[in-house]
């Protein structure tokens, strides 16, 4: 199962040159880059772990790539994404976010159905990976 969160997940995995080009575009817009990783890719897991603070003062794509190489080396079996943050008033949110590294294989999710009153069903999406403790989720 391929997790399709993030902007370019329907394309073949981006090469480092392609990733760098996207980071350059973000930096040109004045956005701050950050790198996050997780082994709990639930669609509502908003808070992936931060690989350091957002790099507000780093304006060079090469520097971001160094951080990315470090993140990949440290967390080879996690999902890693690159975010671009825009502090413009009225936005103050992410402007681009895309996955740049993923575990292999990706076990995906199960949909649990809790049959309650009548024909009512309550749904829970659960990641197969989170059955195991943090750090042991992707072999």
């Amino acid at each position, binding site marked *: 199962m391929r997790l399709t969160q993030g*902007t370019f997940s*329907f394309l073949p995995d981006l090469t480092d040159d392609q990733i760098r080009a996207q980071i350059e575009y973000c930096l040109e817009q004045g956005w701050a880059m950050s790198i996050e990783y997780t082994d709990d890719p639930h669609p*509502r897991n908003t808070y992936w772990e931060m690989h350091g603070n957002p790099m507000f003062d780093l304006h060079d794509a090469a520097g971001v790539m160094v951080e990315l190489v470090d993140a990949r080396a440290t967390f080879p079996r996690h999902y890693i994404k690159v975010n671009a943050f825009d502090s413009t008033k009225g*936005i103050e*949110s992410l*402007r681009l976010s895309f996955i740049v590294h993923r575990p292999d294989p990706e076990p995906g999710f199960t949909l649990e159905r809790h049959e309650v009153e009548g024909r009512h069903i309550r*749904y829970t999406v659960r990641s197969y990976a989170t059955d195991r403790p943090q750090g042991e989720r992707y072999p």
Partner: protein
Amino acid sequence: MVSISLPWRMESQHERTADRYRAGVLKYAQMGYWDPDYEPKETDILALFRITPQDGVDPQEAAAAVAGESSTATWTVVWTDRLTAADVYRAKAYKVEPVPNSTEQYFASIAYDIDLFEPGSIANLTASIIGNVFGFKPLKALRLEDMRFPVAYVKTFDGPPTGIVVERERLDKFGRPLLGATTKPKLGLSGRNYGRVVYEALKGGLDFTKDDENINSQPFMHWRDRFGFVMEAVNRASAASGEVKGHYLNVTGATMEDVYERAEFAKELGSVVVMIDLVIGYTAIQSISKWARRNDMLLHLHRAGASTYTRQKNHGISFRVIAKWMRLAGVDHIHAGTVVGKLEGDPNTIRGFYNILREPYNPADLELGLHFDQDWAGMRKVMPVASGGIHAGQMHQLLTYLGDDVVLQFGGGTIGHPMGIQAGAIANRVALEAMVLARNEGRDIWNEGPDILAAAARTCQPLMAALDTWGEVTFDYTSTDTPDYVPTPTPA
């Protein structure tokens, strides 16, 4: 000298006031509704009307009549005006200009005191501004072109319950247009079959699917059936992709009680979004907007019926005014045109609509049809929805014209795909992501768009099939609703 002239002047003013209120019929201009020296106050509500006076009717008198009939006036003098601060409450037509390239139409600018309106009520605002005046005999036709709302009035509305920024944060989707599709056929599917279309489209890669405007609760599919099957589909697709997905459940019903009942059920089932039709009316829209705000729900508005009064340039209401009213009333999504699709849409006019919905401040820009500066005073932004006759082969045009903050809805362009609905959705998502990637890399997508799509299709059979099927389909008709101040560009 002073002691003689002052009482004389005062007496004369008294006589003039007495004359003004003598029983009988006066021209509206003489009643005080035409004041070319009036300087609009910062707190005034301003309206720009396109007026077509009957033959022989003076344009200034026609403008004064519009000001009068949309504020305090009736056809004859009434002495009871004198029990009020009538000079303040009278709307003032302060400018009349001929419409460029027209012999019989005029733009009339009218200022209204803010206290003529109930705070936070679109129903009251519209009952004044468009309540009576559009059937007025001395005018052949009348169109409300634009309005300016002062910050003091904007702040009396809640605005969108969610807004573009929070919608993206809830969905965890950034940096690209969202993708949607309307379930087809519009009518006749059972709940079970309907949910199948939803599942296939969402699993394939769309972010949203949608009820159509006239899907409510018909004999072939009652609303509870639809909601249940649709939410099964939404949750299955979410588990299959790891993404937040949604379906605009249309909660439009015959009564407000029905609307609330349907919305509550959608919430119970875990839907992230509900939908209403414009035809439920302004009061109902504001009610469900407040409900959506209380219940963390995205509110999608389908502008059903709008073209009956927005499309023709000589009479009705411009959609830019509807867009402003709906941002105030508080919806999160509104259909606002595609430029390139099957429905009416001049590029500059549509850009004007999008700016109204998405920008924190709109400077006046006649080329876009924006006649006034409009400060939105921090009000949340509405996500425009582009729907109707668009397909993957137009992705470079859609991205160029409409930008990132938009929902691109490919109904036929998903469900009609020769390899199936999932393949249709994949084709759209791949085309979109390939185009965003290329644009961010600095490529000239307007000119290289077809090459970028062809390259992406080499590793994506569904996109290849979509381009083969629809690549050449265009809807190239002349727009009727165009700005008056520039030569009109046509879509490529």
